[in-house]
């Protein structure tokens, strides 16, 4: 019994130390990685990019991701087909997306719709109430449609 306990203790301790080492190693690698310029700069002459910026994965986060992607695909199908609208899902905690997270000042899950013209941002909607509305599907959909629609029309908020 004591022997088994000792083996379990050693295995767990090894896992703990390796995990700490991996965490430190990944942090160092992430800091040394080249910063991404963000997706917005790759946009064409006139395009709306709908970003879903999320943190660590969760059930609610995935639901919002799917809902936003479906709205872009179904409600704005013509624009998507014409290559004038794109949906992008990004983890704002990953080092490669830090520049974009800084630019949009993202600290929680949100949808950001950006209208680009000739490589410049001309309108933006920051939809940061998605987590609060996640429990009311119809309310969430209406919020997203209205926000993305405002950018399509050239406004934003």
């Amino acid at each position: 019994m004591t022997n088994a306990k000792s083996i379990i203790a050693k295995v767990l301790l090894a896992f703990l130390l390796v995990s700490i080492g991996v965490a430190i190693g990944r942090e160092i690698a992430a800091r040394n990685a080249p910063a991404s310029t963000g997706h917005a700069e790759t946009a064409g002459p006139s395009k709306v990019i709908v970003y879903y910026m999320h943190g660590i994965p969760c059930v609610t986060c995935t639901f919002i991701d799917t809902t936003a992607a479906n709205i872009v695909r179904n409600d704005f199908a013509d624009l998507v087909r014409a290559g004038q609208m794109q949906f992008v899902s990004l983890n704002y905690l990953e080092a490669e997306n830090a520049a974009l997270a800084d630019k949009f000042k993202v600290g929680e899950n949100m949808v950001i719709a950006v209208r680009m013209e000739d490589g410049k941002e001309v309108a933006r909607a920051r939809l940061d109430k998605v987590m609060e509305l996640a429990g009311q599907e119809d309310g969430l959909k209406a919020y997203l449609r209205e926000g993305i629609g405002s950018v399509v029309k050239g406004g934003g908020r």
Partner: protein
Amino acid sequence: MSILAVLSGVFWLGLLTAVSPCPLATNIAAISFLGRNVSSSRRVLASALLYTLGRTLVYVVLGAALLWGFQAVTGGAGNLKEFASPTSRYLQHYGNLALGPALLLVGMILLGLIELNLSTSVSGAALQQRVAKGGAIWALPLGALFALAFCPPSIALFLSALVISLEHGSAVLPPLVYGIGTAAPVVAFAFVIAFAGGYVGKAFNRLTQIEKWIRAATGVVFIAAGIYYCLTHIYGFRFIG
């Protein structure tokens, strides 16, 4: 809107945070930790209060610091959530990174596994005895640690509570009530487990034995939660979504 209605709304945000699936693993660990002293309802109560205090302290201090910084830098104009975004990202990233190893370490101490192998270390038998035998004081840092491990629903709802703080000119009350709301379901379940365990133990005259099993189960739950958080946040495995 009356202050009571505002605080009820903030309490509701706290409850929503607690019952969202995201902090499920930490909630299960907290319930088992708080409810492990089946022989002493006083200890369960003390642990529950200290756990709530630990969570609440984090929200109040963090909220006050963010509101103070927001007022100092922007003069109260602008968007509080945008201002808080770098802090929010930092907390989500490092809080969750530290959570797995911390849970694993506490679990090993609870089961006496550290004592077995590192008998000359700073932890040793005395620490293991104190943690495992129900020192209620350990619930305070545990509550603080779990509060700091923000996940997407908790950071979004906490920031919403802070916006309410800003709108109503009260830096302390909304984060305090929010913290109590996040702890309430965990505390309620801990009491149910503690009293159910105590009842069964008394009925079968096996109170000491039941308490021993529950304490061992607490250690196992902490280790399982620690491995889960390490795999998710350090190694990048995805179990949901």
